[in-house]
């Protein structure tokens, strides 16, 4: 006879990963250039990460990224968009789609998070039939190399960081907490990781293009691990001034951090300049 209440397994957030998502990194992988002198130091920093994630075996990645005028142009500019579809095609960003597997969604979890997070006062836009660009696929490449099929399901979570203003760092951090609560309340035995992508310091436009701030990046990495609350006080102007106009993507890392425990263990850190125009940063944080 069954007891009156059955304890059901719920989803759990085990870890967070942050990394840059420079398109040239994807091209280096796709064209077999990862052992070139220029690219070796970038990819070397992910050797630990690939071993680590093979052991962690996450079921789902809640993947925070931004679309780069690929799907969302000026016709629709959602601040936060959650992918609720079954699967996602690889976008053609103007030079043909990357030769990587299509991305399989986690629609049950995504629809659940959508409802819970909106009820928690964060107004998400649900999207279904979207292609995903390098913002989402380069992180998968960095963590899983070149498999025949991605070994995880993905909930794409797109943030507008192109048309000013993006959401503030504070807003992103609080949203991460709300996403965490939503995942924690999903009735399925799932090991979920939350990834925050983009950054670190870089500027692609104007006479200031090529801007890199290694001191800022180092302080950002330290604070993200130990004092994310303090990072929430950075204004959007601070990011543009200190990390370059496109370094403002770093607010997305705060969604990941907000979804983790207050205390985390830093499992791995990697930093390298440059990948094309950008400082590459990478962190693996486990909940403790």
């Amino acid at each position, binding site marked *: 006879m069954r007891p009156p209440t059955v304890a059901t397994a719920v989803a759990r957030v085990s870890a967070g990963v942050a990394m840059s998502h420079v*398109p*040239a990194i994807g091209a280096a992988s796709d064209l077999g250039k990862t052992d070139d002198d*220029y690219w070796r130091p970038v990819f070397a920093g992910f050797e630990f990460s690939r071993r680590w994630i093979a052991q962690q075996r996450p079921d789902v990645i809640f993947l925070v990224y931004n679309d*780069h*005028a*690929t799907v969302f*142009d*000026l*016709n629709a500019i959602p601040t936060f968009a959650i992918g609720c579809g079954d699967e996602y095609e690889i976008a*053609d*960003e*103007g*030079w043909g789609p990357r030769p990587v597997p299509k991305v399989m969604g986690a629609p049950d979890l995504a629809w659940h998070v959508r409802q819970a997070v909106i009820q928690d006062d964060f107004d998400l836009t649900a999207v279904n039939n979207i292609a995903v660009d390098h913002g989402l696929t380069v992180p998968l490449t960095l963590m899983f190399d070149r498999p025949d099929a991605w070994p995880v399901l993905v909930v794409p979570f797109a943030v507008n960081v*192109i*048309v*000013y*203003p993006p959401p503030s760092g504070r807003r992103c951090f609080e949203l991460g907490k709300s996403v965490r609560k939503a995942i924690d309340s999903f009735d399925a035995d799932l090991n979920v990781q939350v990834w925050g992508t983009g950054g670190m*310091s*870089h*500027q*692609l*436009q*104007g*006479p*200031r*293009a*090529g*801007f*890199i*701030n*290694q*001191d*800022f990046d180092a302080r950002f990495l330290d604070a993200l691990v130990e004092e994310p609350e303090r990072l929430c006080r950075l204004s959007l*102007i601070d990011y*543009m*001034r*200190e990390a370059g*106009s*496109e370094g403002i993507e770093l607010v997305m890392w705060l969604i990941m951090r907000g979804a983790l425990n207050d205390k985390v263990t830093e499992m791995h850190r990697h930093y390298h*300049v*440059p990948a*094309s*125009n950008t*400082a590459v940063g990478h962190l693996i944080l486990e909940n403790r």
Partner: protein
Amino acid sequence: MALDKPYGDIPGTTVFDSDMARLGFHANQFCMSLMKAENRKRFLADERAYLDEWPMSEEQKKAFLDRNYNRLLELGANVYYFGKLFFTDGMSFEKGAASMTGMAQDAYRAMMISGGRRPEDDVRLASAGRPKAPRRRSGQGPDAAADRGNRRG
């Protein structure tokens, strides 16, 4: 009441805010059209005719024809959008970014490998103002010519 815009003093930087997005709407949507191969082909076959299909200002059209990216920034185009034009021209994002700094691609790449443009450079940029637009012969600068050669090769 005017919006608070505390970001006008970041040197060498155009913030793509509501005013710029409004100003550059058609310019940016033109760039989006270059995501399709058939449109890239049509554009390259007759750039002026293709641009005339879009309700852009003459200044914006001229800046596209001249590949004057710093001017395009002032006219409301955004780098992620006109990046589609880099690719249409067979040009990398690195080279596109370099072109806006007034540096040759080799020098820009060397700067990046040695750690990128330092924050201290903001002082120089603030006093220098915007660099002059790259000189182009009949809308075809030497770099553009090399790029076109590469694309066709």
